[in-house]
């Protein structure tokens, strides 16, 4: 029998148990309640049959009540793909008696829908039976989202841009081929890693904060960052990030599209540098003619800075009278036409005009629409100036050729074509209309005697390759004329003469002058030799008399010798005077004197040289002149000796001094042979001597009146003759009266 205390003890224990059980039951009840109302789906299955489901599990499985689930086989709800796995796991659970890690499975709901679930299983004793309690989470949406992301990533693998998909913790989920190319890392090297650990980035445009805000707000962010590739290459990346949300609008990750713009920027930079450093002005404008870019050269060319003109109309540089050009330009640009090397005038800031050559091209936007024009302007003022200078120099050459009456001809020796300029026709006195220029016809124009000269010169020029140069006579309608021709022969690489380019000028006048000169020299030497001959003979005669001892006539001979020496000396003086006149070296030693005194002295000195003439002097008015006494004396002597020489039968010579306005006029009148009207004009010319077969002959160089005229001209006076054939002549000269 147990002792009372023992009983009590036992009874207490029982009571304690009861109490414990009571508490346990309460706890169990509370626990059940907790499980029942848990938002996580919880179920218990035992021996393959569901024995408990909470409310959340009923909902998860799409059932209306727990009755639809209880006592049904667990396999009714496990997707057939997972039956084996689930059986295996249950077995494992019983043997190890430990809970499993979360496992992804698929369940089939009562309505037949398949859902993705994450299951955590744990072995328990339920109603004394070995059982498994499972906590199930529906992961269908999450899983679908991630799968969608992965699928998308595959699609975009082929894109050239780097496409990186990251979860919300910026861990890389996908890394396409473009990203491998761009950054150099393979996908397997980067998956699950944070992008900032792989390729740290620095913002160029944007910031972390801005990116987060923008994405949160609009789901999209664009920016620019610099990053380094695996090989350390510095990259500039345009980033475009888009949020990826689940069905509840919760962001689960984002996609970034990263485009390498390093090259583009560099080339844009290079292009900008080229545009800025160009010598040509480069300007762009929109279709309304509003300037939107203006390079350094444009600033220099037009004087406007970019700041001054950007936003202004292009008309600012178009001269008012050329404003219509812009309409045409814009019309062409709208039609997509380019304008090349359009030469026009533009105006600078200071109003200066600039000759420019414009090339204008349409500017299109990304969609290919024309939105404006780019204009390249080159300053061609310099070229136009040099063109102008060339034109002017050609004009000068043409004028020189024309005024020099130089004809130019061009003989193509291959085609035997001969070209003449107008002057060549003029020189030959033939008309362009009637004369056909061929070598054969040309040869007919050459004076026949000179034809061999022409052929010889041509042959020499071709053989020795020397310039062709020849003076020859030609036949013209005005008679024989002289021409000088010089030409260059052009040879081809084989040494064959292919072309002759020449210049021809009429040298008849020059030839005449040469002839005059030679005639003059011949006459001068003749004239000089005459007194010399006379002198020599008198000297010889004198010698003979000395030898013979007959000296009776020696004084006469000596006197005659002296006369001839004087004559010689006068001739030489005349020649020297002519030379002084021709070279402008005739010098006057002016002094003031009474003209009558000089005339009187001269008359007195000349009178003794003639025994048959009487020179009378009549002074109407005496005046003082400022003149070279010796030179005026020379003029008087010349006129008086002429008067004596040409007096013929007239024995009287009258010298008069008179006043005419502010001039004093000296005239010498003779009553001799006189001068024909047509000869009067020419007697003051150099070397002119009245030469008339009917006339008596008169020796002399024919220089006297020429020298006299020069002397009087130099004194600002005049000299003239009044004469009638057979009645005599009056030579007069005037000199200004001294103030």
């Amino acid at each position, binding site marked *: 029998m147990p002792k009372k205390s023992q009983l009590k003890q036992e009874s207490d224990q029982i009571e304690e148990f009861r109490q414990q059980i009571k508490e346990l039951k309460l706890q169990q009840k509370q626990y059940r309640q907790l499980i029942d109302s848990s938002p996580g789906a919880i179920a218990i299955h035992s021996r393959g049959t569901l024995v408990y489901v909470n409310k959340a599990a009923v909902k998860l499985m799409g059932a209306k009540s727990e009755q639809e689930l209880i006592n049904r086989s667990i396999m009714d709800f496990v997707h057939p793909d997972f039956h084996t796995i689930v059986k295996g796991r249950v077995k494992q659970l019983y043997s190890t008696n430990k809970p499993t890690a979360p496992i992804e499975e698929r369940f089939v709901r009562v309505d037949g829908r398949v859902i993705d679930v994450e299951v955590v299983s744990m072995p328990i004793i339920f109603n004394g039976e070995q059982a498994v309690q499972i906590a199930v989470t529906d992961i269908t949406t999450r899983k679908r989202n991630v799968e969608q992301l992965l699928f998308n990533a595959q699609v975009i693998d082929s894109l050239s841009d780097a496409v990186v998909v990251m979860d919300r913790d910026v861990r890389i989920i996908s890394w396409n081929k473009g990203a491998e190319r761009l950054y150099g890392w393979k996908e397997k090297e980067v998956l699950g890693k944070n992008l900032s650990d792989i390729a740290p980035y620095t913002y160029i445009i944007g910031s972390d904060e801005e990116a987060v805000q923008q994405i949160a707000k609009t789901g999209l962010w664009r920016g620019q960052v610099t990053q380094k590739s695996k090989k350390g290459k510095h990259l500039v990346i345009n980033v475009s990030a888009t949020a990826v949300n689940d069905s509840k609008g919760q962001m689960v990750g984002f996609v970034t599209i990263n485009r390498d713009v390093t090259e583009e920027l560099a080339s844009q930079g290079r292009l900008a540098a080229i545009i800025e450093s160009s010598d040509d002005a480069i300007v762009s404008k929109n279709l309304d003619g509003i300037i939107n870019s203006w390079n350094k050269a444009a600033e220099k060319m037009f004087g406007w800075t970019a700041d001054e003109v950007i936003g202004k109309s292009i008309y600012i540089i178009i001269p008012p009278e050329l404003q219509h050009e812009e309409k045409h330009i814009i019309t062409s640009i709208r039609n997509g036409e380019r304008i090349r090397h359009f030469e026009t005038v533009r105006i600078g800031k200071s109003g200066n005009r600039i000759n420019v050559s414009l090339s204008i091209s349409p500017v299109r936007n990304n969609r290919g629409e024309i939105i404006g024009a780019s204009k390249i302007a080159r300053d061609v003022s310099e070229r136009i100036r040099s063109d102008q200078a060339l034109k002017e120099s050609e004009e000068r050459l043409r004028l020189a050729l024309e005024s020099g009456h130089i004809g130019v001809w061009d003989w193509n020796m291959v085609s035997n074509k001969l070209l003449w300029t107008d002057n060549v026709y003029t020189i030959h006195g033939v008309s362009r209309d009637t004369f056909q220029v061929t070598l054969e016809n040309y040869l007919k124009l050459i004076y026949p005697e000179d034809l061999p000269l022409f052929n010889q010169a041509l042959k020499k020029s071709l053989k020795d390759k020397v310039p062709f140069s020849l003076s020859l006579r030609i036949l013209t309608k005005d008679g024989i004329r002289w021409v000088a021709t010089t030409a260059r022969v052009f040879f081809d690489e084989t040494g064959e003469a292919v072309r002759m380019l020449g210049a021809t000028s009429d040298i008849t006048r020059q030839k005449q002058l040469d002839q005059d000169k030679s005639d003059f020299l*011949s006459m001068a*030497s*003749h004239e*000089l*030799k*005459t*007194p*010399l*001959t*006379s*002198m*020599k*003979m*008198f000297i*010889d*005669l004198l010698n*003979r008399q000395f030898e013979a001892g007959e000296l009776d006539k020696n004084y006469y001979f000596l006197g*005659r010798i002296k*006369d*001839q020496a004087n*004559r010689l000396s006068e001739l030489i003086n005349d020649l020297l005077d002519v030379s002084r006149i021709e070279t402008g070296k005739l010098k006057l030693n002016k002094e003031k004197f009474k003209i009558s005194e000089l005339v009187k002295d001269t008359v007195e000195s000349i009178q003794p040289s003639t025994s048959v003439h009487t020179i009378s002097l009549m002074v109407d008015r005496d005046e003082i002149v400022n003149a070279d006494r010796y030179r005026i004396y020379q003029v008087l002597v010349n006129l008086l000796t002429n008067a004596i020489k040409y007096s013929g039968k007239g024995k009287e010579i009258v010298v008069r001094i008179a006043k005419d306005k502010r001039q004093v006029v000296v005239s010498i009148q003779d009553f001799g042979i006189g001068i024909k009207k047509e000869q009067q004009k020419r007697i003051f010319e150099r070397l002119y*001597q009245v*030469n*008339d*077969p009917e*006339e*008596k*002959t*008169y*020796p002399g160089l024919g220089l006297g009146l020429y020298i006299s005229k020069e002397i009087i001209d130099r004194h600002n006076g005049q000299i003239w003759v009044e004469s009638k054939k057979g009645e005599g002549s009056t030579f007069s000269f005037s000199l200004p009266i001294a103030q």
Partner: protein
Amino acid sequence: MTGVKALQNKKILIVDDDKDILEPLELLLVSEGFKVDTITKGEQTYTKVTSFKPDLILLDVLMSGSDGRTICKKLKADPKTKDITIVLMSAHPSAKADSKVCGADGFIAKPFDIDDLIKEITDCLS
């Protein structure tokens, strides 16, 4: 001189437009024993030749108004005068060549030594 003396009394006509030449020439030739006449105009030569009948004409080439070469040619072309000896004289250097062309018998260049002139005349006359 004996040779010259042998030619005494031969008649010489001097034609020159310059009296300063004519005078000493006349003096010289007269002193040499020739019979001398002078004229200053070329055209007068033909009449003078008929009246004076010279053995020799001393003829200046370049005269104002007439040309000695023309006169010479004319005289040599005329059968009545072609046998008259003609000596041309000139200060012009090229005249010597011309004298041959126009048929002259002799030529003397001005200025000359009188001995050369006498020699030319006597050579032509003998």
